[in-house]
Every structure is written in structure tokens, then in C-alpha cells.
């Protein structure tokens, strides 16, 4: 099989992993070496495909042969796809060739599981080792690891990689039992715990001035959860994500709305979830990490699923209208962060400007805020809306997308609009 054919199969096999981050690595670059590569700045998307996803890394599998039978996955053993396998040197060469042409900024290497977890990990690690040690490659490397792989191998993977990840796939073991019978949530979390310790160690050692250089290790770990393939509610999904952020300090949880695959399995639901659900989950995730929201405030036991028609912060504000309007000239930062339509950066701008002036509407317009969204929720020197006395439905109706969209999608949620797409990558509100 020639390299083009292998690349076709093994890129196709890798595309369901949403992770594309290439930021947050330690600073390193190629100056003074014979190699290429640098990391440490903000990530760069070198291209975009028509699915709106960024292409920053060469994302491939070592092999798409797999012992496991995860029903949402094109590579599962029951699937009838053509199998291929790269040699380590082929991946190394592809990475370097692509990198030197500035098509990519690194490698994201994963693999179907063959023979055993350790054997598979060794294959993946060998590529990273060659890149780093033989070719002095200083670009970004993200390695997928397997929870059942030995500690020693995970440590070795972390030595070469900037990021390592294990996908939890489902927020509950119950979901895994049906859809990914070989996978186990407890073991995945245990492995994440070990990885966290190694990352912590790296940072702790770094802080001590006299300490010997810490063992090199990746600077972060991330994971992916599949949305819509099992019956888990958004509350369960966000609860799981929140636990991973707090207990194992993950850098990112990626949510991937399960989408139809060639070679579908009988066990999978027929209907894919609307992409907007994935988008709302990213927005909610942002609220957890940067806006100090609690999971229960966004998705409670009583209303466990996100409102697909409204962004979760706006939905929260409408449920808590007694909190508003908020005075942008006086309210503490935590409260400003709760105002729909106001992002972290603009909150900083407001806090810094109001030390010198009393903010008026014209000032906010100059910050290019979304005034229509903002107005009912804020007080400025020259604007004082009535208490949000409107009955809940009419205030909510104000923020719904225009009716023609609703008609088009009679029983589906409104079609996402361009601005939804814009923020879908970043999840910024």
C-alpha cells in the first residue's frame, strides 16, 4: 500500500477526534539546532476544512486496526473498513515534510489498539521519540494514551509530548457498557489522576529555584466526550466535565456531537443530535471555567438539558431576573460576568474604564457590545431599565431567533446562525 493510500485511510480514521489545540505548550524553538519547530505561543490554525474545523496538527492514527468494539467508531473491530498501518518512519517523514511547508504545527498521533495497550503505546511513543531525538523536532506533539497502558509508558509518552489525552467518551459507565464495552470510566479517571500528578510535579519543581530540572513532561491533558450517542443529559455531561476539570485539572474537555459514520452499527441511535447542542455545551463549559458558574446553575436536576434556542448565560439570566438590572458602574466583577452578552475581556475593560469615568451607553457602544441583548440587564449613568417585570415568556421571546427560522425547523431547534458558528470553536460567549 503506498503512502497516499495509507494517509487517506488513517486520516479518515482520525477525523472524529475534535481536539485540535496546539497552545499551552512550554516555550521551545529550533534556534541553534539543525531541526525545525517551535511551541509556546497561541495555537495557529493553518487551514480550515468546510466542516468549520481548524487544521493545526497532522492528525492520524498509527493503525486503524482495533481489537475494541466501540460502536460509534469507524475503526471498531466489527467495521468493514480497509485497514492500514503506518511505519514509525512514515509518520515521522510526513510530519517533518508537512511541518517544513508550514501546513501544520505539529502531530496528533493516536492509534487503534492492537495486540495490547502497551504494545500500541510503544508504537506511538516510538514516533515521538524519533521526532524529538533523531530529528530534533521542537514542534507540537499530542499523543493519545490508553488508560490500561503501564505507568512507565505513560511517563515516557509525556516526556516527548506537549499534551497527552485519554478520551472518556461517555460520562457514565452505563453508556460505555452498551457502546464501548471494553472501556472503563474508573480506570480512565485513575489514569488521568496519575497524569495529573506528573504534570503537577513538573510545575512544582519548576517553582523551586534550587531544584534540579523537573522530569520533562507534557504541560496538559485533555479529553473528549461524545454527545448524543447515549441518553446522558447535559447535566450529566457537564457534571462529568466539571469533575474532570477539578479533580484532574484537564486543560480542555471536547464535546463531539456524534455524527453518522460509514459502517454504522446496529447499536447506535439512527438520529444524530443537532450540532447546536454541542455548541451550547461548549458555551456552558466556558461558563464553568471562566465565569464561575456552577453546573447546577446551568443544568439542574429539574431542567437537566440546555435550552437549545438561547445561550446558557442568557437562559440563566432569564431564570434569575430578580438579579437584574446590574449597574455597570458599581457592580463587582463577579456580577458583571453574569450579564448576558458581556464577555471576560469587556468586563475587564469596563472595570478599568469606570475608575476614571461614569460609563454611559455611548461608551458601551464604542466597546461594540451587543446592545440589544445587554440593555434589559444593565444600568448605566444614562440608562435605567424597568425591573425585569415582563412575564417570562415575552422576555424570552425577545431573544429567540426570528420566527421564519422556527417555522423551518418545526420540531427541531432553530438552525444555528453564523454567529453561533463563529464562537463554536472558542465557546466564547
Amino acid at each position: 500500500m503506498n503512502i497516499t493510500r495509507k494517509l487517506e485511510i488513517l486520516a479518515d480514521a482520525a477525523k472524529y477526534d475534535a481536539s485540535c489545540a496546539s497552545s499551552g505548550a512550554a516555550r521551545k524553538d529550533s534556534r541553534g539546532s539543525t531541526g525545525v519547530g517551535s511551541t509556546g505561543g497561541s495555537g495557529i490554525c493553518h487551514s480550515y476544512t468546510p466542516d468549520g474545523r481548524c487544521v493545526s496538527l497532522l492528525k492520524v492514527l498509527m493503525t486503524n486496526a482495533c481489537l475494541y468494539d466501540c460502536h460509534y467508531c469507524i475503526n471498531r473491530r466489527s467495521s468493514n473498513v480497509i485497514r492500514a498501518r503506518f511505519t514509525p518512519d512514515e509518520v515521522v517523514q510526513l510530519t517533518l515534510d508537512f511541518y517544513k511547508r508550514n501546513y501544520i504545527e505539529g502531530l496528533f498521533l493516536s492509534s487503534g489498539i492492537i495486540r495490547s495497550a502497551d504494545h500500541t503505546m510503544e508504537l506511538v511513543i516510538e514516533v515521538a521519540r524519533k521526532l524529538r531525538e533523531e530529528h530534533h523536532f521542537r514542534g507540537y506533539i499530542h499523543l493519545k494514551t490508553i488508560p490500561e497502558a503501564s505507568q512507565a509508558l505513560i511517563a515516557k509518552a509525556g516526556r516527548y509530548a506537549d499534551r497527552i489525552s485519554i478520551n472518556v467518551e461517555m460520562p457514565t459507565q452505563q453508556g460505555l457498557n452498551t457502546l464501548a464495552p471494553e472501556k472503563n470510566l474508573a480506570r480512565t479517571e485513575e489514569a488521568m489522576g496519575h497524569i495529573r500528578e506528573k504534570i503537577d510535579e513538573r510545575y512544582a519543581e519548576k517553582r523551586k529555584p534550587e531544584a534540579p530540572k523537573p522530569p520533562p513532561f507534557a504541560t496538559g491533558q485533555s479529553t473528549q466526550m461524545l454527545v448524543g450517542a447515549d441518553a446522558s443529559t447535559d447535566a450529566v455531561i457537564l457534571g462529568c466535565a466539571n469533575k474532570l476539570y477539578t479533580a484532574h485539572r484537564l486543560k480542555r474537555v471536547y464535546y463531539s456531537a456524534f455524527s453518522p459514520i460509514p459502517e454504522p452499527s446496529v447499536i447506535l441511535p439512527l438520529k444524530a443530535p443537532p450540532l447546536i447542542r454541542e455548541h451550547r455545551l461548549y458555551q456552558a463549559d466556558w461558563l464553568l471555567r471562566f465565569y464561575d458558574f456552577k453546573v447546577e446553575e446551568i443544568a439542574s436536576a429539574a431542567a437537566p438539558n440546555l435550552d437549545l434556542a438561547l445561550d446558557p448565560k442568557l437562559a440563566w439570566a432569564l431564570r434569575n431576573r430578580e438579579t437584574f438590572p446590574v449597574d455597570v458602574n458599581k457592580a463587582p466583577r463577579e456580577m458583571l460576568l453574569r450579564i448576558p452578552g458581556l464577555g471576560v475581556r469587556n468586563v475587564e475593560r469596563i472595570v478599568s474604564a469606570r475608575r476614571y469615568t461614569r460609563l454611559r451607553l455611548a461608551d458601551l457602544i464604542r466597546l461594540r457590545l451587543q446592545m440589544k441583548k445587554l440593555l434589559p440587564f444593565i444600568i448605566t449613568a444614562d440608562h435605567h431599565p424597568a425591573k425585569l417585570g415582563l412575564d417570562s415568556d415575552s422576555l424570552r421571546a425577545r431573544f429567540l431567533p426570528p420566527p421564519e427560522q422556527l417555522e423551518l425547523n418545526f420540531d427541531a431547534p432553530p438552525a444555528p446562525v453564523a454567529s453561533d458558528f463563529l464562537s463554536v470553536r472558542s465557546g466564547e460567549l
Partner: protein
Amino acid sequence: MRTIVVKPEYEAWRAAARHLLAQRVMPDEVLWSDDPQEASLFVGEDLLAKQPASEAIKVPSAFMDMAKSAAAHTDSKRWALLYRVLWRLTLGGERYLLSMATDRDVRQMQDWCKAVGRDIHKMHAFVRFRLVGVDAVTGREQFVAWFEPDHRIVRLAVPFFEKRFAGMDWSILTPYECAHWDGKRLHFTEGVACSSAPDEDALDDLWRTYYRNIFNPARVKISAMQSEMPKKYWKNLPEAPLIAGLIAESAERVQGMLAKEERPAKPAPKNAYLESLHRMNQDEAP
């Protein structure tokens, strides 16, 4: 009212601005121009030399950073506005001015910085190097790229390429300035025409293979793609010619997936690891 003609570069503006500030010239007493037609009137180096050292006026370094970036913008109003902000920050007594994103001048400056920052970022993303040869003496691979930035950003953008591609020789050609790296030093030459750059690389086909296969036809989001990769960049991207075709055939591909007969689960093969895994899973079951 006086007219100050500067080379369209931050350093030239800074020298002139320093001079004017030392003489306490009010912003509305100056007309700024960087029109190359008036090159003979460029403020000379001698102006810098005449600068009385004792007149040094403290300027926040945050302003200098912003000014450097805003200066790379192509809006001809930038020199006057930068001087006005400089004046307000110092002699005007508004030392806190940069904290006021709500101020018109500050906002304008931030907009320019943002546009320039984006331009630099896109240059880092969309430059495509093409292999043109190998140096017979050093054995280093030599690459050339063509890029058309919106603003005058080459010098701001190239330190990134120096760090990332130190191990190869490269040139980045643009219409107004070119940058070259030979492993030891960076140097710059005049801009060239697009025809000076190679337009193919032997690897482009393999790259297109990757691009075609990493795309998921089940999630078409064209506006998301275009907002991050506007069409103006497409002509220099080897993968861009594939876009229309991928979009056109996506619906049919998804239909094909949905129509495909579902496959039953296949029993586990005999494998020691898999058996141990199943045992582990059973032990952990509550």
C-alpha cells in the same frame, strides 16, 4: 500649522514625534503625511540627533508597543492619531488614558492593533513554503513562500519564522518587502512580483490528500470556515481548490452513510489482552 512627512515606519514616526513633543507642539498644529511622492521631504535623521537629551518625556511602554503595531496599519490617519494619543498621555495629563477602552482615540488605536495582529497571525498560518533546492555547500534545504499581507507587517511577523524554521533556509516574498533567513541572520530586501515565487511543491498533493480525508462531510459549516479563512487567502493555499468539490459532494456522502446497512457486532477475537480486559471489567462491575 506645520506638515511633517515621514517614512511609513514606526521608527521614523517616533523620531518625529519625540522632536515635536520636546517642543510642546500641540497635536492639532501638525499635519502628518507618509506619501512616498513627497519622499524628498522625509524628516531626516538629523532631527533625531538634535534631540536635547534632558527633554526626555516618560511614555508608558504599553503605548510604545501599541504604537509599533498600529504603525504597521495602512490607514493614513494613524500618524496623527498616534501623536495625539502620545500628547494626551504626557503633556495632556491623561496618564490613565490607555485604561479607557471607551475613549475614541484609544479604541481606534486598539482596532488598528487588532487588524495588524490578525494579519500577522494569518501570515503565520497561511504562508506555504515550497522546496526549491538544497544548498550544495551546507546541505540545508531551501524554501520560498509568497504572501500578500494587508498591512506592513513583514518585520513584525518574521521573528516567528526564524524561531520555528531555524534549521532550514527560507525566503518569504511579499509585494512590498521580502525576508530571508540563511541559518545565521535575517535580512530584508525590496518587494517583488508574485511571479518570482514558485507556485507548486511536490508535497502539495499529499497535503491535499490529507485535507480531503480529515474533512467530515456530516458536519458542513461553511461560514465558520470562511470567517477564519477568508477567500482572499485561498489563491495561495494549495488545498483551497478542493473546497467547492468537498462541499458539493458532502450531502450525497452522508446519504450514503445513512443508507448503508448497519453492521452487527462481531464477537471478540481470541486475544490474551482482550480477555484480561473483559475480566477486569467484570471484576469492577458493581
